[in-house]
């Protein structure tokens, strides 16, 4: 048994706050002499947490990258982490700051300063899942029957991830957050997010920028917002909940049995009720009132509220500690090609209803690769993700490899590499067949035991133990 510690960092840049953590992941290689080797991340420990910073903004929602870089430089120094040691981790840009311009500026900065293996990523779905991993909701789902929702409420959005038996099964996002309405201490409204206007109008709630809002008015907004979201999560949507959703659901919602709250607003849920308007507006927004209203409303819904292990730092802990996984221990890798970052995942179904049809698969691969070539043009590598394989025979293996090589011969002649990922343990065998069939200058990367259900991009790192390499599956959905 070999023990191997990997340093991972997490950085969460949200609408209102920015946090940084350093963690250590213990990669364990099991080499029992009677079976194939196995690699697992067996322990994840936090070794450093920063204080919570206010996200430096230049004007509305544009991140001040210079100020951010100063914070980061200081944090790196304080945590005494050397850039060269950082092997994994994630930077997540969330909420209303998750804009393309911000992301590009930060990615550019990080590429130079934050270590070669750090990924930049954003997107509500992924944030919701990471928060659920950081808050302890995912862990809890392993101990219970039924579904638990982690509701991560920050400044701009509430990112919900549903977990069942340890797996994220659904995500959804609401325009519910502490900073959607910003206030002065006297109750003067300084900002209203345009995202909640339609919902406010539907409820005949007239709050306008420049006007003074009363305690009761603001509390009513917080209360109705909480009730709309909770009614949606417990399976009986009411109060125009759909107007608060950022996007329609991809599949029908399953009612949840338990709810965990994380994020900045969740942190304030433990605090006593704000007495005066000045008290409620102490952060310059409706956050404290929303938190109180949410706590009061949650009692009336049929889902049990569970205390989160982490509230404010749930996302950054999820990003830093939980986002890195390792591939299977028997894989086929041409190390010269690694690391590969931001590789789009192209999903191809292998078996429909456990029926294997080689011709059908060949058509699907061809179609997927043609599409990928159009989308990602030229030499940009993409990863073919094989979906639904019940059992892979050698005959299937050969047919899969032939279909892929053939599609590359026809549509991807410039490409110098083939990247294939799958869930079932077969990558080494498939890689060997691919290598045997293809031209020698076409490099092969074939990895297994990767769960790519909730992501559309993958980062491939370097080997961390034996042949296994560090991977991060992510989304890059900028609004």
């Amino acid at each position, binding site marked *: 048994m070999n023990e191997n510690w990997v340093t991972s960092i997490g950085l969460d840049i949200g609408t209102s706050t920015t946090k940084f953590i350093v963690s250590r992941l213990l990669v364990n290689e099991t080499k029992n*002499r009677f079976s194939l080797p196995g690699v697992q991340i067996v322990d994840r420990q936090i070794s450093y947490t920063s204080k919570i910073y206010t996200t430096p903004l230049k004007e509305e929602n544009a991140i001040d990258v210079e100020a951010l870089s100063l914070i980061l430089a200081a944090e790196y120094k304080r945590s005494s982490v050397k850039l060269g040691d950082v092997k994994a981790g994630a930077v997540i840009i969330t909420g209303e700051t998750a804009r393309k311009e911000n992301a590009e500026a930060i990615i550019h900065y990080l590429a130079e300063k934050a270590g070669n293996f750090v990924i930049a990523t954003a997107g509500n779905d992924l944030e919701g899942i990471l928060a659920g991993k950081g808050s302890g909701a995912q862990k809890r789902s392993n101990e219970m029957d039924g579904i638990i929702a982690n509701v991560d409420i920050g400044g701009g959005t509430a990112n919900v991830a549903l977990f069942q038996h340890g797996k994220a099964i659904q995500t959804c996002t609401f325009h519910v957050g502490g900073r959607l309405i910003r206030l002065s201490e006297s109750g003067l409204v300084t900002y209203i997010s345009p995202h909640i206007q339609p919902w406010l109008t539907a409820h005949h709630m007239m709050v306008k920028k420049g006007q003074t809002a009363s305690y009761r008015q603001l509390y009513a907004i917080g209360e109705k917002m909480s009730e709309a979201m909770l009614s949606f999560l417990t399976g009986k949507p009411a109060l125009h909940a759909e107007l608060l959703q950022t996007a329609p659901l991809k599949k029908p919602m399953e009612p949840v049995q338990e709810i965990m709250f994380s994020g900045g607003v969740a942190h304030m849920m433990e605090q006593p009720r704000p007495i005066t308007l000045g008290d409620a507006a102490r952060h310059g927004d409706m956050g404290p009132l929303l938190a109180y209203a949410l706590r009061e409303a949650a009692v009336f819904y049929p889902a049990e509220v569970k205390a989160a292990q982490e509230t404010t730092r749930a996302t950054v802990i999820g990003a830093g500690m939980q986002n890195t996984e390792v591939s299977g221990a*028997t894989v086929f890798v041409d190390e010269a090609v690694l690391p590969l970052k931001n590789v789009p995942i192209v999903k191809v179904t292998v078996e429909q209803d456990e029926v294997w049809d080689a011709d059908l698969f060949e058509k699907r691969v061809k179609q997927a690769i043609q599409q990928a070539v159009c989308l990602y043009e030229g030499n940009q590598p993409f990863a073919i993700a094989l979906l639904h394989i019940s059992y892979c*025979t050698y005959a299937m293996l050969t047919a899969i490899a032939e279909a892929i090589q053939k599609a590359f011969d026809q549509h991807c002649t410039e490409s110098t590499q083939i990247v294939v990922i799958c869930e079932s343990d077969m990558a*080494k065998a498939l890689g060997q067949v691919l290598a*045997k069939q293809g031209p020698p200058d076409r490099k092969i990367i074939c990895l297994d035991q990767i769960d790519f259900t909730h992501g559309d991009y993958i980062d491939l790192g370097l080997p961390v133990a034996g042949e296994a390499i560090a991977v991060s599956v992510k989304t890059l959905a900028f609004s």
Partner: protein
Amino acid sequence: MNEVVDRLKNYTPARIGVGRTGTRPLTKEFLSFRIDHAAAVDSVYGEVAPELLESFQLFSVDTCIETKEHYLTRPDQGRLLSEAGEKMIWEKCVKQPQVQVVVSDGLSANAIEENMADVYPALMDSLEANGLSAGTPFFVKGGRVGCMDAIGELLKPDVFVLLIGERPGLVCAHSMSAYMCYRPRAGTRESERMVISNIHRRGTPPVEAAAHIGTILSKMIEQKTSGVGLVM
């Protein structure tokens, strides 16, 4: 409650949560037990079809075993080659190959019939991918793991791979093992042998197990040792 039991049952193929009537098992469960037991017996007493061996171009040699009872009661005889077998190997095989591949029914002929089509070609790919060359493969009828020592004395390969049927159980009667050894010879210690076991459809994936053999063999050749002394 039932859902919990069902979920737990997914973790194991063992007979848990099968129910009962009074103090006795349900008829359905009892029958399935009898079927699995029969399958295990059939695996031990079965024979690998000659057509299968032909399709992989394997010739067949005997050990000193005459009957199945003889095989079960005298493991030592399953480790020795018959005189005719030795002669055939000597005549037909490449001497001192880098890799010697041998297939044997062992305790489960079924294991060979079920897994050969997936394991054998993937093993050949694995040898090729690792730049290894194989000698002349063949089949040993009624073999024990130790028969690799007798063959090693004759052919003197650098490394040896024996694909052999495992002792069947009530969960699986077609599980195969791949035993590997650096320069097997008379007196090889058991600690020098290595194995990937439990190779079957629902166990160690056959194609992946085969694909990994080449990596292990390369390390054996590089380090000139196998078993507990090999650094993986």
